[in-house]
């Protein structure tokens, strides 16, 4: 690739870093209570146009409530929600330029696929020929042209999911809400559909807000992820940032596999911190953007795939841990090794299986050295 091509590559899509950009959705100190239960706790967040924004969290964390407030099915107890600069509290669901794709798909069983898609357009009193054209367009978008006259119970689960998507996109909403859209599909279909969703989002230029408890799904589709717990947003960032530099132990642990090594900070500064964590083991260095006072309890979070495993002590690595192989999990394309340190801690390392399994150098009970660079892990104090 020539240098010119790199230079003309489009700027990365990141309106949240642009102070001039006006958000499409603004949650301002929003609280929602159901009786004594606080579902959303004083939440403030901005979501920008054309974003594919994922709300990620365990069930009961408030993500669905947030979405239902955007759709108009719940009203906040306190605070303001603005969509396109307008306070939406008094606007009923049928008057919002927002459409929702329901978890159960909520397809009308007595109407055909085409009639389901046309349903919203008819409510807008669109002329008949325009409705027909728009329905065709939508059927093509989700590749269901052949099934226009089928009833929902005559098509497969994956096809129903696409009908639901087509129906919610038919009115060209400013904002599309997706409530666990792929939850009912099997794994293979789910992965294919994730890419389809991203394509459709890009083609239509609609802002998508997706609710999911599947972190892999959120990582795949989203431009930004909000990790939620107990009605609060713990961290909002791009998938890469969330994964590489989680802001807290909760987020590090929630997303993907992680080693959490507890210790006390001995030295900090220059974007790094050093922790002392076990007797007889060398101190470990990781990223820490803020300075942490020496002596603070902290956790080094390091992903298993960033940990190298070798049978001889590596010479030039900053972080080295010595231990013995306790367990090996063979996953096909890679293997996960669980190493026990002399002080009894378990640390995971992952290595790609580039060689046939019989030629593997590392086996159970073997003395090994784990190593990683000083930017591979992050030191977290919360």
């Amino acid at each position, binding site marked *: 690739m020539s240098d010119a091509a790199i230079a003309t590559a489009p700027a990365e899509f990141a309106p949240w870093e642009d102070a001039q950009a006006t958000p499409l959705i603004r949650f301002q100190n929003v609280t929602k209570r159901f009786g004594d239960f606080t579902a959303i706790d004083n939440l403030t967040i901005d979501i920008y146009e054309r974003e594919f924004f994922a709300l990620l969290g365990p069930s009961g964390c408030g993500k669905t409530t947030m979405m239902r407030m955007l*759709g*108009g*099915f719940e009203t906040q107890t306190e605070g303001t929600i603005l969509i396109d600069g307008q306070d939406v509290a008094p606007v*009923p*669901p*049928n008057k919002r330029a*927002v*459409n*929702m794709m*329901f*978890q*159960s798909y*909520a397809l*009308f*069983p*007595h109407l055909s696929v085409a009639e389901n898609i046309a*349903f*919203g357009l008819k*409510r*807008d009193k669109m002329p008949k020929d325009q409705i027909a054209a728009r329905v065709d367009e939508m059927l093509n978008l989700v590749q269901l042209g052949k099934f226009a006259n089928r009833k929902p*119970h005559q098509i497969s689960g994956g096809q129903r999911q696409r009908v639901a998507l087509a*129906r*919610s996109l038919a*009115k060209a909403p400013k904002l599309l809400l997706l409530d666990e859209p792929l939850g009912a599909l099997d794994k293979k279909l789910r992965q294919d559909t994730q890419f389809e969703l991203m394509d459709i989002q890009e083609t239509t230029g609609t802002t998508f807000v997706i609710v999911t408890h599947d972190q892999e799904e959120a990582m795949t589709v989203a431009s930004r992820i909000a990790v939620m717990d107990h009605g609060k947003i713990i961290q909002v960032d791009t998938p890469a940032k969330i994964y590489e530099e989680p802001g807290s132990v909760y987020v590090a642990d929630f997303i993907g596999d992680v080693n959490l090594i507890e210790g006390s900070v001995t030295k900090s500064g220059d974007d790094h911190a050093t922790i002392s964590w076990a007797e007889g083991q060398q101190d470990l260095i990781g990223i820490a953007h803020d300075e942490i006072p020496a002596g603070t309890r902290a956790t080094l979070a390091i992903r298993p795939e960033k940990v190298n495993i070798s049978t001889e002590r590596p010479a030039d690595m900053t972080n080295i841990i010595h231990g013995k192989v306790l367990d090996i999990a063979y996953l096909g394309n890679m293997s996960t090794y669980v190493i026990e340190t002399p002080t009894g801690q378990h640390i995971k390392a992952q290595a790609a299986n580039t060689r046939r399994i019989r030629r593997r150098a590392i086996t159970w009970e073997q003395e090994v050295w784990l190593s990683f660079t000083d930017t591979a892990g992050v030191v977290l104090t919360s």
Partner: protein
Amino acid sequence: MKRFGLISVPYLWLLALFLVPFLIVLKISLSDTALAIPPYTPTLDLSAGWAGVREWLSGLDMENFTWLTEDDLYWKAYLSSLKIAVLSTIFTLLVGFPIAYGMSRAPDEWRPTLMMLIILPFWTSFLIRVYAWKAILSQEGFLNQLLMGIGIINEPLTILNTNTAVYIGIVYTYLPFMVLPIYAALERLDESLLEAAEDLGCSRLTAFWLITLPLSKQGVIAGSFLVFIPAMGEFVIPSLLGGSKTLMIGKVLYEEFFANRDWPVASAVAVILLLILIIPIVLFQRNEEKQREAGK
């Protein structure tokens, strides 16, 4: 063989309790009245052998059915029954649908209680409940006393022994048969369908019209047939609550049997009634089948 044995049970049941009695009634309808016990001729004399059977067969004719077309009492009674059955089905639907809708929208913990209240009247004898309505609807009855007590009317209304009382009686008696199938249909209705309809631009009212009503159609049809079919041949309610002007085929049937002691004509009336009811029964069955298919 085992499977055959299993299905044969309901068929034997139907044969013994439905088909055989029907054939007997059909045979009587083709006979003539006689001052005898039983009050019709011919009767089958098997001791005479083949000649007896032949004589028996030659004694049967369509005379009674011809008679039904000659006297306008009968077709007027059929028509009047049809009208009363259709109207009371509509009234029962108008009363029953809101009840079923309310039940299906009630909080989960209330539903068993509400269901219980709908079924509760069945625990008392049907006759006693109809007599109770006599006490409520009569000139000095509770209803008139109440209405005069709160000053809505000055003179008691004449309700008992009119068609109005018959309608009230039928609506009251058959209400559970209307409410239960509609409730079953509405309860299955997924709340998110209504939210989806609203999301796509419907008001609450249009969502009800475009989603709730069509999806409860099967229940409405089932309930309507369950009310219409027995109401058509109803005898107790018109004879206890209706007046002398209330003309229903069930009453005519009773009078032919017991007052006139004309079993053959009464049987002919019953056979025609059954033939009329076969149409809605077949339609009802078809609706049930369609529902089962859609539920798959």
